[in-house]
């Protein structure tokens, strides 16, 4: 089959590889109809994630048709149309039973590596380096889906792929980010980053009842999408004024937002000249993996007693974490890879009853063979790119 593989920093290529095979009774093979490039794939592409290996098939946002099932998969049949959640979760361990699917104890066969870096292992993830298991990803014609009896959600109606594809990751991830903010009505929520996760965090905060949602980015076209499609009430373009903390205070009568969502992660673009330069150098020589401007500003901007919800991906260590602001303001830091399985059904329902049409983020539709172009366009935000969908 054809598959998009990582072949070195800033390089991916579409190659012929063997077709996937059932390796376990609880596996299924899915023929992929749509697959997407995620912002977190760019961290791999850019070479910031240390356990990636040449030849790894990328991709963790995919859906398609079940073409083969292991004998332990009782709930799916060949021909079913499914969306596959990006965390690979067994459904049986204590964590899965408590809906903490993204920290499943059993799905990562490189648990020993993950423990060395994180203290504990986290769940396997499709196409996301070897620290999350070394699973072949979904930017391919076919993929093997482990624990297929608990992960994939069956799509029973004729909604087009683009409306349900993002149940695999970015919609539940954005929703999880907003859900962690304890929104009960009347809050002001600030969202750093207006990429796909940021857009869904904004839309979700609005759905959950926030009164004002402030989108922060440096690209006007992304802020326009945040305002016109996701429902942001206010925007901050930090290419015009980099002092985000002061602008947020001013916009909220000096209080600061009740909760702040970081939808940026370890390759933050803004930040103050000298510190940014130092962090780029430290990342380049591997003495720091995470560049943390967005998280630092989120902590400084959040109102006392508020919540900072981190959806942007971090991989290792970050310097100059503002412990003083964090502690003295009594903030709560909430985070995690989204436990997608927990949100699949309720969010599918919200799509079906018309509360949201997640296809609003799609700006580029390409064939699988054009994946390398898709990565370049997405990375450099060319051609007003927000989300790339690939068709095998």
């Amino acid at each position, binding site marked *: 089959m054809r*598959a998009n*593989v990582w072949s070195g920093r800033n390089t991916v290529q579409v190659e012929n*590889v*063997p*077709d*996937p*095979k059932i*390796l*376990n*009774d*609880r596996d299924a093979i899915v023929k992929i109809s749509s697959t997407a490039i995620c912002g977190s794939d760019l961290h791999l592409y850019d070479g910031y994630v240390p356990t990636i*290996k*040449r*030849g*790894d*098939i990328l991709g963790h946002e995919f859906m398609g048709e079940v073409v083969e099932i292991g004998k*332990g998969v009782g709930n799916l049949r060949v021909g079913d149309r499914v969306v596959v959640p990006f965390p690979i979760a*067994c*459904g*049986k*361990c*204590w964590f899965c*039973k408590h809906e903490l699917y993204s920290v499943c*104890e*059993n*799905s*990562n*066969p*490189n*648990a*020993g*590596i993950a423990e060395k870096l994180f203290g504990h292992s986290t769940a*396997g993830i499709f*196409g996301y380096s*070897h620290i999350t*298991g*070394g*699973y*072949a*990803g979904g930017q391919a014609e076919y993929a*093997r889906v*482990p*624990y297929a009896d608990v992960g994939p959600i069956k799509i029973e109606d004729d909604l087009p792929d683009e409306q349900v594809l993002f149940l695999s990751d970015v919609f539940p991830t954005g929703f999880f980010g907003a859900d962690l903010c304890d929104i009960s009505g009347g809050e002001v929520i600030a969202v750093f980053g207006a990429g796909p996760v940021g857009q869904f965090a904004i839309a979700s905060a609005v759905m959950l009842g926030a009164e004002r949602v402030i989108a922060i980015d440096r690209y006007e076209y992304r802020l326009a999408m945040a305002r016109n499609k996701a429902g942001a009430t206010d925007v901050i373009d930090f290419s015009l004024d980099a002092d985000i903390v002061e602008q947020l205070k001013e916009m909220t009568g000096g209080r600061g937002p009740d909760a702040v969502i970081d939808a940026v992660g370890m390759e933050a673009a803004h930040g103050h000249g000298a510190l940014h330069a130092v962090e780029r150098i430290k990342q380049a020589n591997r003495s720091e993996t995470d560049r943390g401007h967005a998280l630092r500003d989120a902590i400084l901007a959040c109102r006392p007693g508020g919540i900072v919800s981190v959806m942007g991906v971090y991989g290792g260590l970050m310097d100059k974490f503002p412990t003083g602001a964090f502690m003295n303001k009594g903030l709560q830091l909430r985070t995690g890879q989204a436990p997608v399985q927990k949100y699949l059904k309720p969010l599918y329902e919200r799509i079906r009853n018309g509360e949201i049409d997640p296809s609003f983020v799609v700006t580029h539709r390409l064939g699988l063979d054009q994946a390398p172009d898709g990565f370049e366009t997405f990375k450099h935000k060319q051609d007003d790119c927000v989300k790339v969908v690939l068709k095998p």
Partner: protein
Amino acid sequence: MTKKAAITVARPRDDVEQLWRSSGFGLEGAAVTLLEAPGDRGTEIHVELQSGPPAGKLGEAVQKLAGSEPLAKLKDDLRRFKQRVETGVIARSEAVPEGELAKRKLKQRPAQPLAESETEKAGV
């Protein structure tokens, strides 16, 4: 260096004891203790290796490099036991088709499907 390892299995103590006995774990020179975990967390398996490595510190270093160090192997075995008992299968990825394996840590396959000839070798 500690020669202990522990893992928690989400099953009652009596079940775990029976499964452990029938699993045929040949842990020579190891002391195994099963404890009820707090709350609904199942059963803790504690294993302490009592015999030292074959040739002192040097032997230990060689075993570590080869990935056949007893403690590393013990941890692999505990994870596999837990996976089998809780999920019915061993977690296998394309990079690590044999499942968790200390000696695989430094020489992983790329994360892409196995050729026909490789599946048998991986014991699938």
